[in-house]
């Protein structure tokens, strides 16, 4: 397989980064001056016995090194601790939160990619026209809007028509499958639209820039010289080549979306990972904070790896 060693190198690097992230995670929460260390033991509403048990489980009575080792061991077993807020395992909370976040983020991202690619290509194609100016301006405008503010604006606009909070209507009793689906769809509309609009702005600019670069390349001139029609050149040469930077940049941005979703989920009270982290901050729920942060970091590393591998797959020039 071409450049198998390249793939291996990137995967190893990703794993290494995850390891570093885990260590940083540990350092942040256990070694921070005073506060976080003892907070793990200062579980509210806990009896002295529970406190002692927790202390022993997390090895808070041992040296920092020993704690680190125990921490690693727990991670391997999937034990992220127990949430202070609802006394459930952090991993379980995060799993539920992730299941809630993914559809919303996915919807917004797909919307942004489709719309962004369309407007980006059109803007590059119709260079020097009013269409280009309008596309770029609109994209820039949405790109510049603070995510949460855009969410609030949508709330103001659609307050009467679409639900603006939560993931589903609590007052629906035993809804049929379709009613439930409709309800979910209504609730996911605004949050994913918010995310989608901000991302669309960014993607339009990325696509336009990549297309402009590609359209200035010599092989495009060759393709024209060969007698290909403009649209054929666009499809067969320009788009094909521009996909390279576009795909990698999009993949990279995905890593940060889960984090950026924090703002959207806060505005719309969406019970996802972002909200979970935010609530954990407010409630000083350190196990949740630690677990959530680790999850978000791993997602960034993961998507960086995806971007690397995509680039490798799409560009035959990369061999090592």
């Amino acid at each position: 397989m071409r450049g198998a060693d390249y793939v291996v190198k990137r995967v190893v690097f990703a794993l290494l980064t995850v390891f570093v992230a885990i260590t940083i995670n540990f350092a942040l929460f256990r070694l921070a001056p005073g506060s976080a260390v003892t907070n793990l033991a200062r579980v509210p509403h806990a009896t002295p016995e529970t406190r002692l048990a927790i202390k022993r489980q997390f090895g808070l009575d041992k040296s920092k090194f020993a704690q680190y080792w125990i921490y690693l061991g727990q991670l391997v077993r999937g034990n992220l601790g127990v949430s202070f807020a609802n006394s459930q395992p952090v991993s379980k909370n995060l799993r539920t939160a992730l299941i809630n976040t993914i559809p919303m983020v996915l919807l917004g991202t797909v919307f942004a990619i489709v719309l962004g690619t369309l407007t980006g290509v059109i803007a590059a194609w119709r260079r020097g026209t009013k269409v280009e100016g309008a596309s770029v301006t609109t994209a820039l405008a949405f790109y510049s809007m603070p995510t949460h503010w855009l969410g609030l604006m949508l709330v103001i606009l659609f307050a009467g028509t679409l639900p603006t909070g939560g993931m589903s209507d609590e007052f629906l009793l035993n809804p049929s499958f379709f009613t439930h689906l409709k309800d979910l769809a209504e609730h996911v509309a605004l949050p994913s639209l918010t995310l989608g609009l901000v991302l669309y702005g960014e993607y339009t600019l990325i696509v336009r820039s990549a297309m402009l670069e590609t359209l200035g390349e010599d092989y495009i001139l060759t393709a024209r010289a060969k007698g290909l029609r403009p649209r054929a050149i666009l499809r067969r040469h320009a788009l094909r080549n521009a996909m390279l930077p576009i795909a990698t940049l999009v993949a990279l941005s995905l890593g940060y979306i889960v984090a950026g979703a924090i703002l959207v989920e806060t505005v719309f009270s969406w019970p996802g990972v972002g909200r979970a982290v935010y609530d954990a901050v407010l409630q000083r729920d350190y196990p949740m904070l630690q677990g959530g942060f680790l999850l978000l970091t791993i997602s960034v590393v993961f998507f960086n790896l995806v971007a690397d591998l995509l680039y490798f797959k799409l560009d035959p020039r990369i061999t090592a």
Partner: protein
Amino acid sequence: MSGLLEVEGLQVWFDLDRGRELHAVQGVSFSLEPGERLGLVGESGCGKTTTVLGLLGLLPPSASVAGSVRLNGVDILAGGEQTIRPHRWVDLAIVFQGAMNALNPVKTVGSQIVEALELHGLARGRDARLRTGELLESVGIPEARVDRFPHEFSGGMRQRAAIAMALACNPSVLVADEPTTALDVMVQAQILELLDSLCRDFGLALLLVTHDLPVVAELCDRAAVMYAGEIVEHGPVDALYHEPRHPYTRLLFAATPDLYGEGVPASIPGAPPRLDLPLTGCPFHTRCDRAFARCPQERPLLRELERGRSAACHLNDVVAEVV
């Protein structure tokens, strides 16, 4: 006389900011007979590349064009892109500079040649692949390389592949824009030899654009010297070298280092005029060693001096007057 290719009064302008324009090509005319080889020479920036791009209609959207380009008597420039496109590659093919990224890096070399064949209906599918292999062999590339990517080829081989691709649709005119620039000297010689033999074998007319005079001397029968967007002298290569009728031609040939090391190559002091400003008088007069009173005031026209020779210089009038 209806030659194969007749260019008359070709002009190209480029839009600049604030409504200004760059007059890159200021009225170029020449003709090419079947099998004939014409060299277009001049310093970089003189407009020779823009001229040939204009010929094929390969100019960017910021360009505007005037003049006529007649292929077998038909003006293909008359309708702009629409009338030119059908003739690209099947009548007029072009090979670009070696350093350029002229081949798409993410597609195999073979697929790009097949694309040309299929587009113009010369072959499809398996036939196209076979024909591609033949074309590559004819330029000295092993047929097995047909599925390789451009970056797997050396510079010289890439250039050969580009030539093979240019010949795919049996054009009658081959335009080569600085085909040997940025290639090693040894490779340069090979490419020139290749062009020579291919043009001979297939009876191609060759329009060679270059700033490298020895290349023109080796490959072409006639040459047109360009300066500041126009042709200043035109004639057989030997005549241009031995008895130039324009000071720029003389200085240009004198500036070429002699292989035998005789004499010191002289560079021409000064710089070409700006083409975004209107010109008065002869564009070369500020750098000319023979300029006289008339030169800064009146722009010389390209006049035929004898059969097959023309030059745009007032000195020729003076001589004629004297005689």
